[in-house]
C-alpha cells in the first residue's frame, strides 16, 4: 500500500526533530514559570497523529536501533532460559544463598522488577485521575512496561522455590489432601497481589488499546493486518454510545488501579515488615516501598523513552514538558525515599533496641557497608541534580540520572534483603553471602526477557495511545483540527466522489 510506505513519517521526523532540538536548547514555548509548556509539537492533526504513530507499526522497515536492541535483548533472554534450565536440573543450591541468607538475588530482583512495574499504572491511572494530560503520550508505553516488568518479577518467586514443580500449592483449590494455603503468610498475599495487579494492568492496557487497534484496522489495506487488528479491536466503531460507557469504565478502572498500585508494593513490603528480623520489621516499609517503586519505575521509563523518542523521532509527542514533569515527580518520590532512609536510621537509634541499632550500624559500617554508601550516592545524592531545570529538560542528562536511580533502587533491595539477613539475632549464625555466576546470569536474563518483550511491543503495537494523543492535538498549537495537508496515507480517499478534501 503506497500510502504507508511514502515519506510522511520521515518528514514528520524532520519537522519534529526540528522542534525537538528547538526545545532542547530551551527556546521552545514556556510556561509563565519558564518551564517547557508544550504537550505536543506544532502542526499535528488527528490524521498526522494516526499517520505518525500508526506507521511505526504498519511500516515494514525498522530503525537500526531496534535491531541492535533486539539482538542484544534476545541473546540475554537465551541466557535466562539456559540458567533456569540448569536451575531446575540442579536446585537452588547453584545460587549463593545459604543459612542465614536464605534469600538472595532472586528476591532482590523480584522486588526490583515489581517496583519498576509500578510506573505504568501510576502514570496511566493516578495521573489520569488528577487530569495530568501530559501522561497521555506515555501511558500506553509505560503500561506495557508494567506488564513486562511484572512478568519478569513474577518468575522469581517461582524460580526461588526449593521445589518449583509444586508452586501451585500456594493457590487455594480443592485437592485430594484436603489442604489450603496459609492465608496468614505474606507470600500468599504476594501471590494474590501480584496476579491481581498483572490482570488489572492487562485489562487497563487492553481497554486503552481497543480504539487504536480500530484505527490501525482502518488505516491498513493489507488484508491479514485488517483481520488481525480487526479481531483485536473487537469490532470497535467509535459509536458515541460506546464511547460513553468506554470512558466511564476507563475511569473506573483507573479508580481501581490507583489503590491497587499502592497496595501491591505495600504487600510486597509486608514480606519483610511482617517478619521479626531487625531491618525488616519496620512500620514505614509500605509507604517507603511504594515511593521507591515509583522512583525506580519512572527512572526506567525515562531510560527507555529517551532513546526511543530519539530513534523514532517522537519528540513532538513526548515533549520536554513530559520529561520535565516526570523528573519533578522523581525528585519528589526520591526525597520521600531519602526520608525513608533517614527514618530507618533514626528509629533504629530511637527504639533503643540493641538488635535494631546493630542492624543500622551494620548496614553502614558492616562488611557490606559499601552497598549502603553506594545506595546513598546513587539514590540520594545524584538525583539532587534534578533540582536543575537544565538537567530535567536535557534528555541525555536525565537519562544518566535515571540510570543511577535504577542501580540505586536495586542496591536498596540488596541492602534490605541480604544485609539484614546476614547478621541477625544469634551471632553464631552470622555468615556472608557471595553471589554466584548463576545469580548474575538469571538477573541479566530477566533484563533480556524484559527488553525482548518491550521491543516486540514497539514493533507490533502502537507504543503511544493514538486516541489519547489526539485529545492533545488541540494543545499542539494554534493549528486547525484538520491538518493543512491531507496526510498521504489518505490519498486513496481523495479521488472518491465527494471525498472531502478541506
Amino acid at each position: 500500500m503506497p500510502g504507508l510506505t511514502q515519506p510522511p513519517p520521515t518528514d514528520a521526523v524532520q519537522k519534529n526533530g526540528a522542534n525537538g532540538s528547538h526545545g532542547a536548547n530551551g527556546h521552545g514555548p514556556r510556561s509563565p514559570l519558564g518551564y517547557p509548556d508544550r504537550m505536543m509539537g506544532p502542526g499535528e492533526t488527528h490524521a498526522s497523529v494516526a499517520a505518525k504513530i500508526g506507521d511505526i507499526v504498519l511500516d515494514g522497515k525498522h530503525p537500526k536501533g531496534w535491531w541492535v536492541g533486539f539482538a542484544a535483548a534476545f541473546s540475554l533472554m537465551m541466557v535466562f532460559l539456559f540458567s533456569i534450565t540448569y536451575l531446575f536440573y540442579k536446585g537452588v543450591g547453584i545460587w549463593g544463598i545459604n543459612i542465614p541468607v536464605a534469600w538472595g538475588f532472586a528476591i532482590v530482583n523480584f522486588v526490583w522488577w515489581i517496583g519498576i512495574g509500578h510506573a505504568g499504572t501510576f502514570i496511566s491511572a493516578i495521573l489520569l485521575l488528577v487530569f495530568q494530560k501530559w501522561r497521555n503520550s506515555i501511558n500506553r508505553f509505560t503500561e506495557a512496561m508494567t506488564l513486562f516488568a511484572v512478568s519478569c518479577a513474577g518468575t522469581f518467586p517461582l524460580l526461588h522455590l526449593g521445589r518449583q514443580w509444586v508452586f501451585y500449592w500456594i493457590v487455594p483449590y480443592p485437592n485430594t489432601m484436603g489442604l489450603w494455603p496459609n492465608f496468614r503468610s505474606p507470600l500468599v498475599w504476594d501471590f494474590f497481589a501480584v496476579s491481581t495487579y498483572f490482570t488489572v494492568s492487562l485489562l487497563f492496557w487492553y481497554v486503552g488499546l481497543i480504539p487504536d487497534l480500530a484505527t490501525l484496522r482502518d488505516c491498513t489495506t493489507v488484508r491479514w493486518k485488517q483481520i488481525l487488528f480487526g479481531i483485536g479491536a473487537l469490532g470497535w466503531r467509535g459509536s458515541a454510545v460506546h464511547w460513553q460507557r468506554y470512558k466511564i469504565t476507563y475511569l473506573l478502572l483507573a479508580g481501581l488501579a490507583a489503590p491497587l498500585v499502592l497496595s501491591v508494593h505495600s504487600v510486597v513490603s509486608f514480606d519483610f515488615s511482617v517478619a521479626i528480623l531487625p531491618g525488616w520489621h519496620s512500620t514505614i516499609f509500605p509507604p517507603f516501598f511504594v515511593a521507591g517503586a515509583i522512583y525506580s519505575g519512572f527512572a526506567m521509563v525515562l531510560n527507555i523513552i529517551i532513546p526511543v523518542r530519539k530513534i523514532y523521532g517522537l519528540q513532538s509527542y513526548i515533549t520536554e514538558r513530559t520529561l520535565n514533569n516526570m523528573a519533578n515527580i522523581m525528585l519528589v518520590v526520591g526525597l520521600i525515599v531519602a526520608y525513608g532512609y533517614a527514618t530507618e536510621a533514626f528509629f533504629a537509634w530511637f527504639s533503643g533496641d540493641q538488635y535494631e541499632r546493630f542492624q543500622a550500624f551494620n548496614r553502614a559500617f558492616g562488611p557490606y557497608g559499601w552497598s549502603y554508601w553506594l545506595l546513598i550516592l546513587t539514590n540520594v545524592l545524584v538525583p539532587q541534580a534534578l533540582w536543575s531545570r537544565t538537567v530535567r529538560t536535557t534528555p541525555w542528562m536525565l537519562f544518566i540520572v535515571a540510570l543511577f536511580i535504577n542501580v540505586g533502587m536495586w542496591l536498596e533491595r540488596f541492602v534490605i534483603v541480604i544485609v539484614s539477613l546476614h547478621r541477625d539475632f544469634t551471632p553464631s549464625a552470622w555468615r556472608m553471602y557471595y553471589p554466584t555466576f548463576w545469580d548474575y546470569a538469571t538477573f541479566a536474563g530477566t533484563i533480556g526477557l524484559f527488553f525482548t518483550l518491550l521491543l516486540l511491543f514497539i514493533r507490533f503495537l502502537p507504543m503511544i495511545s493514538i486516541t489519547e494523543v489526539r485529545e492533545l492535538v488541540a494543545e499542539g498549537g494554534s493549528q486547525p483540527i484538520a491538518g493543512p495537508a491531507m496526510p498521504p496515507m489518505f490519498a486513496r480517499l481523495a479521488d472518491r466522489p465527494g471525498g472531502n478534501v478541506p
Partner: protein
Amino acid sequence: MAQIFPAGSNAVVRAVIVGGPLALCALVGSLYAIEWSPWATRQYAPISQPVPFSHKHHVGQLGIDCRYCHQGVEKSAYAGIPPTETCMTCHSQLYTDQAMLAPVRQSLAENRPIAWNKVHDLPDFVYFNHSIHVNKGMGCTSCHGRENQMQLVWQDQTLYMSWCLQCHRHPENFIADKSQAVNPQRVAAVDDPAKGATHEERITYARQLVKDYHILSSGVLTDCSTCHR
C-alpha cells in the same frame, strides 16, 4: 468501505465467547474426575501375585484369623507379610504337589523370599501404624474392605489424605467394638442395626466408644506429625 468480516463472523464470535469458558470448565471438571477415578486411585483392581493366594478361600471359607499370617497387626506399625514358613505350616501337608504352590516350595528350598506385589502402597512419608488403629476400635475392614470376599486382593479405598481425615476428624462414624477389630464381617457401629434402631442411638453408642477407648481429640488426630515425620 467494505466489511472486513462476513456477517457470519458475529455468530462465530458469540459461539467462542460462550463455548470457551464452557470448554475450560469441562477440562477442569474432567481433571478432577480423573483424579478421583479408580484409575488414579488404583481402587478395585485385583493385583496379580506370584502365588494366586485367595483371601476369599483362606479367610472367607476356611475362616483363618487375619492375625495368623499378619502377626504384627496388633503390636507393630506393619501388619507384616507372613514368611514362607507360615505357608508351609499347612502346605507341607496339603496340596504338596499343587503346581500353583511351586514358588512357595522353591522359596523355602532356596531360602529366597517370595516377591509379593504391594496392594496398599502408602507414600513413604506417611507413617501408618496398624497396631494403634486395631487397638482403638478400628478394624481391618475399615480400610481394606471385605477381604474375605476377594479372590485376589484389591485396594478398597482411595487412600487419599482427605480420606484419612474423614476418620481422624469423626472417628465415631467408623468405630466399632474392639472385639470386632479383626472380624472380616465387621461393620461400623453407626451402620450396625444391633447398636440401635435409629441413627441417633447408634451414633451415641459410637460416641460412647470413642470416649471409652480414650481416642484423642480430632485436633490431635488431624495434627500433621500424627502421620508425617
